[in-house]
């Protein structure tokens, strides 16, 4: 089974990396082909603060919150994500005996994208156009490199960067990147691990987990989803609509998080 697993950068998960590494080891030993793709928002924010590069966020008119990535922020993003987070994940996996290979998604031309030359940002009562944002919409996914690595028995650890048409390295939403990679790889499952048990009916009540959503009804759950969860839901739906058998939004802080997600412990999105 090919499983694409995305782990968020939120603080909660960083304490559980050893648990995750051991979990992935058992999945690999059981003959699964695993690809790990990671976010890193907490690390990016922390480094930005240390470097005096203010982290600013854009909220689009439709309520989606994303990082405003000018070139100074992109530099922080690359150092924190491609440097620190990716290397630490590879270290953790190698220490437990997994042959991990840390790459960014510009390697081997995996992700090409189109840089959004104008992004709308709601600021108070005004709507402004941001023109120097280095985020991109994915236009092509080439899985040749990760397939070559998987065939060699390696576990790719992917940092989601995109090479844009002008040769710039751009930022991309890690959930969306995971969905695109799972789709292109015709993965059996997409697992989105974060610091919540899944989509909750009531965000303050961890046991109000919504266990199963069919893609057709996903939209009706949008109102109860936070900005971050909206992105996960949209990514899960996009993957399942494009052929991934199922997507699971699950808790990355628990023991054996990936295995439990594969066993449907979380919000399962199905066709």
């Amino acid at each position, binding site marked *: 089974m090919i499983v694409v697993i995305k782990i968020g950068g939120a603080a909660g998960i960083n304490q559980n990396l050893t648990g995750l590494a051991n979990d992935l080891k058992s999945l690999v030993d059981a003959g699964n082909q695993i690809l790990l793709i990671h976010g890193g*928002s907490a690390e990016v924010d922390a480094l930005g603060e240390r470097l005096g590069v203010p982290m600013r966020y854009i909220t689009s008119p439709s309520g989606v919150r994303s990082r405003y990535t000018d070139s100074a922020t992109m530099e922080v993003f690359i150092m924190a994500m491609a440097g620190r987070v990716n290397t630490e994940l590879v270290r953790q996996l190698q220490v437990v005996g997994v042959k991990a290979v840390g790459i960014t998604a510009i390697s081997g031309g995996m992700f090409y994208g189109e840089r959004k030359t*104008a992004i709308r940002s709601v600021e108070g009562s005004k*709507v402004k*156009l941001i023109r120097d944002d280095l985020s991109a919409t994915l236009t092509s996914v080439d899985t040749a490199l990760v397939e070559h690595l998987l065939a060699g028995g390696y576990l790719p650890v992917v940092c989601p960067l995109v090479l844009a048409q002008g040769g710039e390295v751009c*930022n*991309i939403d890690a959930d969306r990147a995971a969905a695109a990679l799972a789709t292109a790889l015709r993965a059996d499952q997409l697992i989105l691990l974060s610091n919540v048990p899944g989509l909750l009916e009531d965000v303050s009540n961890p046991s109000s987990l919504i266990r199963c959503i069919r893609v057709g009804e996903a939209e009706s759950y949008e109102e109860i989803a936070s900005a971050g969860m909206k992105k996960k839901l949209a990514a899960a739906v996009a993957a399942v609509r494009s052929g991934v058998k199922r997507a699971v939004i699950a808790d990355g802080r628990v023991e054996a998080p990936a295995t439990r997600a594969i066993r449907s412990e979380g919000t399962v999105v199905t066709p």
Partner: protein
Amino acid sequence: MLCSCPECAGKWKVGSLEKGEIVVCPECGVELEVTSVEPLSLELAPEEEEDWGE
């Protein structure tokens, strides 16, 4: 500030504007981008792109 719509030549007044702000022409309803404040210049705002971003 007196605004002049590049699409329908409509005129209208506003208090203050910022570079990069989007304003809607009250006459033809088109969305305009404030490309400069001094001197004031308005241009057709680009289509809204999907706003996925990390």
